[in-house]
């Protein structure tokens, strides 16, 4: 036992030493090429604006705050898309399992097509689909104070006021209100429908992994088909489905880094701008890696809690 621990400690030291050596080597090389390696730039003024932010942000704020906006945007989009993808995925998964032939084929078609189209195309597709039919701000559609145009969906919001278009104030855009941009919406839709195809399959595999005898036994004991599904099949199916489901949420978060292709200010996009302004390539890529790792850990921790709270994971 002690030997095992000692061996592991040794391994850890070797790995750490390798990392430090690599870092020192890189620092020396970068120094030789006059490429800056300090993180001090984080506290300089960003100088650029961000069009989607849940916290106040102005061009006079720091790079660090811009990064925070990016992380929050990534976090929110990933969380919303994860929930929606689960709902859609479960619906498609159940449809796939349904005894109704047409419904089941349709669900199969959904899974097979959407899974086989690269995510980037999903995103570009949704972006165009959302932008094309929507009117210009002058002709915003309005319903109960909510405005919709090709710049986004604007809600009245305490502190931000009622959204309105007034050419005298701003000839181009709606002012006021809380906005959901078409970029955010397209990213959420794309991630949702793409990931849902995988989730549907995971659900199906989970349900099919429950031995048939279980359902038959439950019905023999007098449970209705609905009770059988809810009390006997689903808890066991979800237990099987949970680990692959978690991987899907992790994948979704990482996939959200394609946001910049459709103009959404996620972590990758914001850090890309920072890299461009400061030239601090290593630092920004390092920060990105650490933050994505952090987000993954967060997702994992969250899922562990859900797993513990519910009895799905119970042995």
């Amino acid at each position: 036992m002690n030997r095992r621990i000692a061996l592991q400690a040794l391994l850890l030291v070797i790995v750490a030493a390798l990392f430090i050596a690599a870092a020192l080597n890189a620092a020396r090389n970068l120094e030789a090429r006059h490429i800056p390696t300090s993180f001090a730039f984080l506290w300089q003024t960003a100088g650029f604006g961000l069009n989607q932010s849940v916290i106040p942000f102005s061009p006079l704020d720091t790079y660090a705050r811009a990064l925070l906006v990016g992380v929050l945007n990534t976090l929110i989009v990933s969380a919303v898309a994860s929930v929606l993808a689960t709902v859609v995925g479960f619906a498609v998964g159940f449809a796939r399992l349904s005894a109704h032939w047409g419904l089941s084929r349709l669900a199969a078609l959904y899974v097979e097509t959407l899974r086989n189209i690269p995510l980037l195309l999903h995103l570009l597709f949704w972006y165009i689909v959302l932008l094309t039919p929507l009117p210009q701000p002058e002709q915003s559609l309005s319903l109960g104070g909510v405005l919709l145009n090709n710049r986004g969906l604007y809600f009245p919001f305490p502190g931000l006021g009622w959204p309105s278009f007034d050419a005298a104030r701003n000839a181009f855009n709606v002012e006021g209100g809380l906005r959901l941009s078409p970029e955010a919406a397209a990213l959420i839709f794309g991630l949702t429908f793409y990931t849902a195809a995988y989730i549907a399959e995971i659900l199906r595999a989970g349900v099919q992994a429950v031995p048939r005898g279980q359902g038959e036994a439950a019905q023999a004991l007098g449970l209705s088909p609905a009770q059988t599904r809810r009390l006997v099949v689903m808890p066991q199916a979800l237990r099987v489905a949970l680990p692959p489901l978690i991987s899907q949420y992790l994948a979704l978060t990482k996939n959200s880094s394609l946001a910049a292709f459709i103009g959404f200010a996620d972590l990758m996009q914001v850090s890309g701008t920072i890299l461009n302004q400061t030239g601090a390539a290593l630092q920004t890529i390092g920060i990105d890696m650490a933050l994505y790792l952090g987000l993954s850990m967060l997702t994992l921790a969250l899922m562990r809690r859900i797993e513990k709270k519910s009895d799905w994971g119970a042995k």
Partner: protein
Amino acid sequence: MLVRVIAFSLLLGLSARAGTLDDVLARGALVCGVNTGLAGFGLPDNRGEWRGFDIDYCRAVAAAIFDDPQKVRFTPLSGKDRFTALQSGEIDLLSRNTTWTQSREAGQGLLFAGVNYFDGQAFMVRKARNLKSVRDLKGASICVQQGTTTELNLADTFRKLGISAETVVFTGGDEALKAYESGRCDAYTTDGSALYAQRLKLSAPGEHEILGETISKEPFGPVVRQGDDRWFNLVKWTHFALLDAEELGVTAANVERLRQSDTPEIRRLLGADNDFGAGLGLPKDWVVRIVKAVGNYGEIFERNLGQGSPLKIPRGLNAQWRDGGLHYAPPVR
């Protein structure tokens, strides 16, 4: 992301080595970082052959080294990835409508080998809007490409004018253009030269106009890594040779004949008597090789950007100094 991670690992491992020319010779090809697709500057044609102003610069360097303009491998790079690719040694030369700025050179370990295109940032808007100047874009949404000086100038300009605008930032120039065309943005901004090229991609180019105002200086040039003076000189003098050739009237068609010319400047340029190539690691007839392969600067310009191209960009600032332009190359002597 993947590209950046790979580049990142390469950066970790890189050692400060010189001898790019030796590497290129050993490899048998020049690796040139170019645009992912911008008409006039770098774009594969329908047969998959790369064409453009920046492409011809790569071919000129390859011709000088190998006497064969085909010995180039092109690596298409986005605005965001281009410098990392050069720093990490993935490419030997970056020739991609890249603006020479102080921080790119001094702050990123790079060197610009000269200015081969003088440009400025401009705005494309819908004619129907009847806009006169950048100031009229107060409150507007503007589509722009990431990783460019364009993105930075935009923020500065609006700050200077004291007005705000929404910037929508895209990885690719084409995505930014499409978003503008779909009505998501009121303006699309990039280098004037690229606006000429991008406007032709719109379904109704006639409905759009380019505002006369330019908001920045955008001098483009080929870029190399710091720390290899010989390679830097080779690229720099390839550029000067193209300009000198134009100034002296040496063209692809007459270069062989002009080797017998009596004019001392032409004889020196073409290596008729003394050897001016050796100091660059090149043979005596290096300029003959270059001009035979791609023509002189004026020929490259006209074929890709000027009257011989769909863009029809006037020489303007890019004329020779004698004709009122800014190009003024040191002599070969």
